[in-house]
């Protein structure tokens, strides 16, 4: 009964505090002036031109992210093609180039979606940052857990031995424990320095 009461109270409180927030995303919006509209590219044929256009669009989005300090998420071509661009694009005007001789270069235009894909990219960047931080923290936590395990084991062994010997060899035991801890610390430091 008490459990049910506590749960209901807790959930009502939670709803009152957090439920109304709607947790609307507050990710900054890219100014319209900076938002890329389309990318034009040329190739020896339409297929190549389309590939180059998608590639350039990917580079453009990458630069945009870097300029806005979002460096953790690196969008690839597949992501850009599937999520940021409208369809496969459309053929653009051909261009003649002396280097390639008489054959005109085929043009291709890819257009970015009007939807706010910037928010999705930024959230992916946040996620990528989070995953990196999480890996680093889990690594730190593992080291801390090992250290804690050693400290606890030494403390436990000391107390048990001290109680078993009724405190007669407390100084000796303390010296042994400090010695063992120092040796383990030195080994750990050497191992860390070796990385």
């Amino acid at each position: 009964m008490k459990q049910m009461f506590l749960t209901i109270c807790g959930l009502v409180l939670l709803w009152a505090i957090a439920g109304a927030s709607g947790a609307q995303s507050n990710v900054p919006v890219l100014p319209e002036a900076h938002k890329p509209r389309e990318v034009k590219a040329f190739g020896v044929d339409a297929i190549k031109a389309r590939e180059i256009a998608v590639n350039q669009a990917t580079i453009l989005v990458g630069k945009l992210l870097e300029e806005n300090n979002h460096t953790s998420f690196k969008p690839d071509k597949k992501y850009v093609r599937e999520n940021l661009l409208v369809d496969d694009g459309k053929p653009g005007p051909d261009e003649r180039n002396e280097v390639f001789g008489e054959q005109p270069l085929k043009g291709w235009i890819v257009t970015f979606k009007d939807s706010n894909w910037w928010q999705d990219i930024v959230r992916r960047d946040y996620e990528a940052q989070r995953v990196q931080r999480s890996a680093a923290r889990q690594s730190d936590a593992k080291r801390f857990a090992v250290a804690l395990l050693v400290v606890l084991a030494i403390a436990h062994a000391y107390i048990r031995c001290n109680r078993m010997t009724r405190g007669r060899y407390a100084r000796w035991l303390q010296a042994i424990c400090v010695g063992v801890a120092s040796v383990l610390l030195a080994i750990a430091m050497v191992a860390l320095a070796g990385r």
Partner: protein
Amino acid sequence: MKFTYRSGQEPLPGYTIKRGIGLGGFGEVYFAVTAGGKEVALKWIRSNLDIELRGVQQCLNLKHPNLVHLYDVRADAQGNHWLVMEYVAGEPLSAILARHPNGVAPELAAQWLQGLAQAIHCLHEHGIVHRDLKPANIFLENGIIKVGDYGLCKLMADSQHAGMTKDIGTVHYMAPEISTGNYNRQIDIYAAGVLLYEMLTGNVPFEGESAGEILMKHLTAAPDLSRVPKEFVAILEKALTKNPAHRYASIMELAKDVAIVMKQPGSIVMSLPVSNKLPPEIPSVIPVTPAMLFQDRLADLTGNLLWAIVASAGLAVMWSLVFGAGDYSKLVPIFFLTLASSWCVLIPTKLWPPIGRSDSWPRRLIHVTLGIGIGLFALWLEGYDLPMPWNAAARMDALQPWQAPFDPPTGMRVFGVLDRPSNTSMPILTCYIAYFGLMFLVLRWWKAAQLYRGTRFSIKAMFAVMFWAFLLLFLLPSLHHREIGFVSLTLAAVVCQITAPWKERVPIRKKKVRLATA
């Protein structure tokens, strides 16, 4: 049961109640202060009034450092009788023994027995038999033993001693001759022997499933002395003998034998006794109690915490092998959250053992605070940054729930139960705090780690955790978080139970037992 009076009330003129400290069939005990600021314990005598008052009046002028002093008996405006007593700030021996399932160090047991003997000797010299010696009536304050509840005949029915007991715990300390109705102060010596046995081993010599069974063992069975240190075997044999004529003639003889044994070469070096009426051959006091107690508790605690690390790691690996389907990315967070959750149960339960009516608001508050802490730890472990003044880079919008619109959810799909729609209505910070906070608020986690429980491992307790962990899963933002939260709390329920020390709780029928028939 609730206390009749609340803090601030003044049922007895001049005494302001601060809080209730004891409840029972005999009445209620409160901590109170006088108008002048003196701290006292007030006992409202509600049952067996005549018998109680008669006993109390005999003891009002007793003065001894090892006895809880009785100051006065007063009646309030409604005619209720109140016993004004010394307030003992220390803890009862029952609480200390609950923390030491294998008993305390022999030197401590010997030291405490000296204090107990002094108190009982004083009572016996004044012609009073305590009749209800048990750990709950003995207190330890600043290393000094204080015996309380003397002079109260609450458990004995009438002057012919053919008594009944209402307090089931008392039968563990009851001398066999009580059933005959013909007894004297030897029953206190027998009870002191039981207490010494319990202090040395952590158990009473006779246990059973009913009061009658225990009493029958007192009458017929020999105590198992193989578990007590060999120095004490002869002493306990004599103190616990069935025939009162063969027991120690006085409690001081028992105390003297214990002191002599402790002083023998090869035996434990004694650092003791307690008060000013000891035989001259016993050396004076060196108060070592708190340090030794602390060491014992620390040893138990560190042992439990170590086992919890090993068990958490083993269970997390097993889970990943069986249910992980080759995905070991969640192994580390599951291990750390299992460990943190189990430690948050083991440590408070060890430092504040649940005794009697353990479900209190302060305990719930501690648990919910720890649950919130675990939620924040989970958040940190998952790489989320809290927007704190010292962390300018942290962004609140990174804590908003988000499921990549183009990515399918990945994670455990055991029975498909965790794969429910994402919670996008709350910030992730709130999700974590709410989930772990509520899980620690609604469940009585300490029951899984308390010393006296029905079985070492209860599958029911594990299913209770799983039930609530599943019920509240909607709070967590996505499948990934749900798997980690659900699994780690379930494993924590297992770890707590297998690593916490366990002693079987003996169910005793709560009914009156006629001793004469035992």
